[in-house]
C-alpha cells in the first residue's frame, strides 16, 4: 500500500524539525560534494597539464632549503640555478636540448611568470597553446603572453601594459580559456626575462630533452650526483608526487565528509526517534485499526527517504553554485573544482543510504508500539 501522502503530511506537521534535519543533511552532503569537487578538479588539472609535456622531459630545480622561505611573510623564492650549472648540464651525455626558465611569482598573486626561449615552448608543453587575441613575441621582442585567468586578474588585454618586478611590461597576446594550469601563467622570451628580473644567464628551473627516452634515468642520476643542490624529475615523477598529494587530499576530504555525515545521521535518528515517541498513540491507533507492522515501518522509512532525497538534491544544487562561484568568480575560469557525475551520484546515493540506515532504528521502535498502550482512555 502506498501511504507516501501520510509520510509527507507528518513531515509538514512538524515543519521546523523537518527543516532542521534537512539542513543537517544539506551541510554534510554539501561538504562531501564541495570538498570532493576540489580533489577531483586538482587531480584533473594536474593530469591535463602533465599530458601536454613529453613523458621523457626532465625538469631540474634547486633542491628545497629553508633559505627559500626567507623574505617577507608569504613570499617564496624559487632557488636560482647559476649560468655555470646550466652550462655543465648541457655537457651531460645524452642531453639533446636544455631550456633554462626564469620562474617568478608575480607579486602576491596566484600564478607564475615564466621566461623561456620561444623555440623551446614545446618542452614546456605550450607549443600549441592557442591565442584568443594578439600574438607570441619573438625571442628578441619585449612582451608577454598571458593565460586567460592571469589576464582576468590583471584586467589586461593585448596592447595593455602590466607591472612585473616594478617594470612596465607590454601584453602581446592572451591565450584561449580552459588551458588548465596555463590559464594562470604569464610567458615571455628568456632574454626579456633576464632583463626584467636581472638574472643574466641564470634560471629557476631547467627543462631537459634527452636524445632518447632510454637516457632519462642516466641523465637524472648524473645531474643529482654532480650537483648536490639540484633535483631532477620527469613529468611522470612529478605526476606521481602530485597524485600522492591529491590522494592525501582525497582522504582528508572523505574524512571531513564522513564526520559531517555522522553528525547529520545522528540528527536524523534524533528527529525520527522523537517523532516516533511523540506519535506513539497515533501509531498505536493505526495498528488498532488494522495496519501491518510493515506498513508502519515503511511510513517511517519513507519519511527518512523524503528528508534525504530533498536534502541531497538541495546539496547538489548548492554545490554546483559554490563550484561555479569558486571557478568563475574567484578564480576567473580555472576549473579548480569539478563535480564529476560519479561524485554527484555517489554523494546523493550516500546521503540516501545513510538516512535509510539511520531511520531503521526509529522505525523498529515504531513497530514495537503496543496498540493497547496507545488507546488506553484519557
Amino acid at each position: 500500500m502506498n501511504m507516501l501522502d501520510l509520510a509527507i503530511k507528518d513531515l509538514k506537521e512538524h515543519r521546523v524539525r523537518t527543516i532542521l534535519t534537512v539542513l543537517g543533511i544539506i551541510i554534510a552532503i554539501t561538504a562531501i560534494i564541495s570538498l570532493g569537487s576540489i580533489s577531483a578538479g586538482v587531480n584533473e588539472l594536474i593530469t591535463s597539464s602533465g599530458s601536454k609535456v613529453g613523458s621523457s622531459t626532465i625538469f631540474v630545480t634547486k633542491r628545497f632549503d629553508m633559505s627559500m622561505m626567507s623574505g617577507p611573510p608569504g613570499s617564496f623564492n624559487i632557488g636560482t640555478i647559476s649560468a655555470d650549472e646550466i652550462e655543465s648540464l648541457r655537457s651531460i651525455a645524452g642531453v639533446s636540448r636544455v631550456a633554462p626558465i626564469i620562474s617568478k611569482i608575480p607579486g602576491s598573486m596566484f600564478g607564475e611568470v615564466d621566461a623561456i626561449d620561444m623555440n623551446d615552448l614545446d618542452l614546456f608543453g605550450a607549443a600549441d597553446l592557442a591565442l584568443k587575441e594578439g600574438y607570441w613575441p619573438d625571442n628578441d621582442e619585449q612582451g608577454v603572453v598571458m593565460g586567460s585567468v592571469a589576464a582576468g586578474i590583471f584586467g589586461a588585454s593585448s596592447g595593455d601594459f602590466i607591472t612585473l618586478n616594478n617594470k612596465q611590461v607590454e601584453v602581446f597576446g592572451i591565450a584561449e580559456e580552459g588551458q588548465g594550469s596555463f590559464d594562470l601563467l604569464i610567458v615571455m622570451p628568456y632574454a626579456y626575462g633576464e632583463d626584467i628580473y636581472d638574472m643574466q644567464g641564470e634560471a629557476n628551473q631547467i627543462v631537459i630533452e634527452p636524445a632518447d627516452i632510454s637516457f632519462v634515468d642516466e641523465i637524472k642520476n648524473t645531474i643529482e650526483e654532480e650537483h648536490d643542490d639540484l633535483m631532477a624529475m620527469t613529468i611522470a615523477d612529478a605526476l606521481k608526487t602530485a597524485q600522492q598529494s591529491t590522494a592525501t587530499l582525497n582522504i582528508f576530504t572523505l574524512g571531513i565528509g564522513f564526520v559531517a555525515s555522522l553528525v547529520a545521521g545522528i540528527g536524523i535518528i534524533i528527529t525520527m526517534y522523537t517523532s516516533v515517541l511523540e506519535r506513539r498513540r497515533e501509531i498505536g491507533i493505526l495498528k488498532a485499526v488494522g495496519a501491518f507492522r510493515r506498513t508502519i515501518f515503511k511510513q517511517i522509512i519513507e519519511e527518512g527517504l523524503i528528508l534525504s532525497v530533498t536534502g541531497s538534491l538541495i546539496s547538489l544544487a548548492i554545490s554546483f553554485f559554490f563550484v561555479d562561484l569558486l571557478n568563475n568568480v574567484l578564480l576567473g575560469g580555472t576549473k579548480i573544482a569539478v563535480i564529476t557525475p560519479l561524485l554527484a551520484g555517489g554523494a546523493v546515493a550516500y546521503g540516501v543510504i545513510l538516512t535509510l540506515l539511520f531511520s531503521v532504528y526509529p522505525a523498529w521502535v515504531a513497530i514495537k508500539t503496543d496498540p493497547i498502550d496507545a488507546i488506553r482512555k484519557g
Partner: protein
Amino acid sequence: MKRIILELRDVWKIYCMKDVETNALRGINLKIAAGEYAAIVGPSGSGKSTLMHILGCLDTPTKGKVLVDGRDVSEMNDDQLALIRRKKIGFVFQAYNLITSLNAIENVALPMRFSGYGKGEAFKKARELLIKVGLEKRMSHKPNEMSGGEQQRVAIARALINEPEIILADEPTGNLDTKTGKEIFELVESLHTKTKKTLIIVTHDLNLAQRAHQEIRIKDGEIVGEYARSGHKGSEGA
C-alpha cells in the same frame, strides 16, 4: 442454532509486575452469536477493558482460547491479528482515537487503505459513510476542529468502512454530555438494529447495559452474571 462469532474458552490474562502476579481475567467462558447485541458491564478495575482488548484481538490471553468466527486467534502474531481486526472488527473508543493530523475523510479512509484500496476508492466510501453519520459538512475538518460528538461520529464511520461483522464500542459515550451521548448511543445501536451487525458495548452504566440482548456482568476478572433478554427495550434509533 445461531453461528457463534466470538468465543472465549477458559481465558486467563495474568500480568507480572515485579514478581507480583495480577489476574486481570480468571477463566472467562463466553459465547457471542452473530448478529447479537451484547453489553459487558462492570465497575472500573473489574477487567472489562482487558476483556474487550482480547475480544477485539488487540491482545492475546495468557491461557485459554479465543475463537473469532471459529478461528483460533490466541496464538496469532501481530500482523495476523491486525488482519483480523481490519476485516472483522470495527472499533469505537471512548477517546475517539482519531489521527490528529488527518481530516475526517482521511481518518475514515485509513482502514480501507490498509486493505490495499487506492485513495480515490477509499475516499469515495468514506464520504458516503460520513454522510450517513450526519457529517456531510465536516468532511475536511480535522479532529481539533470538531466537537466530541462529531469526532465520535467520524470514529463510527471509520469503524464501518471495511464492513466488519462485529462492532466493538468501549464506553462510546463516556466523554460526551448527556444529550450528545444519547444521540451517539442511538447511532451505535442502530448499527445493530438496521444493519444486523454484532454489537458489543463495554460500559459501566447499568441502564445502557440493560438495552442489550445479552448482558455480561464482570467483577474481579470473572463473569458474575449473564442475562439474556428477547428483544431490547426502547430502540428509538429505528
